[in-house]
């Protein structure tokens, strides 16, 4: 949560456009976790995700003069990161090894996770690492646009409208992609559902 006297994104963007690089640093600090999360969930590889997140911010800085304020900076930088990540994935279709981050201890108290695993038979204790691998493997088998929609909606919690703005498509397209992606994931994760 930002302190009440913190400058707005618009102000920081304006200062950056005026030639104050420290203002852009503040924007990087505000959005680095979300942009990294996006690139990480799209690639399932920490090193690649880190590179992509950094490059997205560098691109953002390079083209900040083109930002006219038609959308929020948040939407704009997400769009830069989404396009950059999808381009990277298209160029490297052969794929790379999975390098997953650790799951934090907070998951033990996550109501969604508790709810999802409580009905498991006592004979089969859920192995968190196993589940994590299965989830990442399934997500990586989706096409880039479907993976992106699932990541933005079901993992990062963005609305259909926000995703539509970021991906420059209609909300209907977002919904249909989400539906198809979930269907695919259900098939792939049949043993876990």
């Amino acid at each position: 949560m930002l302190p009440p006297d913190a400058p707005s994104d618009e102000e920081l963007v304006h200062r950056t456009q005026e030639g104050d690089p420290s203002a852009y640093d503040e924007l990087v600090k505000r959005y680095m976790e979300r942009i990294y999360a996006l690139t990480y969930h799209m690639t399932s590889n920490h090193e690649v995700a880190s590179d992509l997140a950094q490059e997205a911010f560098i691109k953002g800085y390079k083209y900040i003069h083109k930002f006219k304020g038609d959308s929020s900076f948040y939407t704009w930088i997400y769009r830069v990161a989404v396009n950059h990540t999808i381009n990277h994935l298209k160029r490297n279709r052969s794929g790379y090894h999975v390098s997953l981050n650790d799951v934090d201890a907070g998951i033990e108290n996550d109501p969604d996770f508790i709810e999802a695993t409580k009905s498991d038979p006592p004979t089969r204790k859920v192995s968190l690492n196993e589940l994590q691998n299965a989830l990442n493997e399934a997500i990586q088998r989706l096409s880039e646009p479907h993976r992106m929609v699932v990541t933005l909606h079901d993992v990062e919690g963005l609305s259909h409208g926000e995703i539509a703005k970021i991906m420059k498509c209609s909300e209907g397209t977002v919904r249909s992609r989400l539906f198809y992606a979930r269907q695919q994931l259900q098939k792939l994760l049949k043993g876990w559902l």
Partner: protein
Amino acid sequence: MSEQIDPEFEKLRRLLAVKRHERPPANYFENFLDEFHRRQRTEPLRKPGWWEQLTELFRAEPLLAARYALGSAIVLMLCLNVYLLVRTPPTGRTELATIPPVTNGMIAVAKTGPGFQPMPPPGAFAEPRPQPVLVASNNFILDRVNAAPVNYDPTGDF
């Protein structure tokens, strides 16, 4: 932020909570800005070429790429058409239409510019040759003898 989810996918959504708890190594975000500055300093050294920039643009905007491809194809087709029209020799029909009519041994040549005078036909420069006398088919050779007919009038004093 999240909207109502289809109950069919409720368990899947809950399971995806695991993804939200995946975290990068400790101190990763503390060094993020320093790494950003380091990369920013090296960035101008490797400026992409125009071709790389163009392919990057087309990758990001596939619709734009399709428009450019369509536009280029149309322009190419037009150029090809113009080239073929210029280069193709005139067809038989056109030839007939352009041959000037022959009148009295003179070819009527269209004037092509101011002060243009058509060349006379080759025959105009040659010495006039004696034309052979055409002989009527029913005439006899004696008709051409320049001799007065014999006078049978009685002119003597006999």
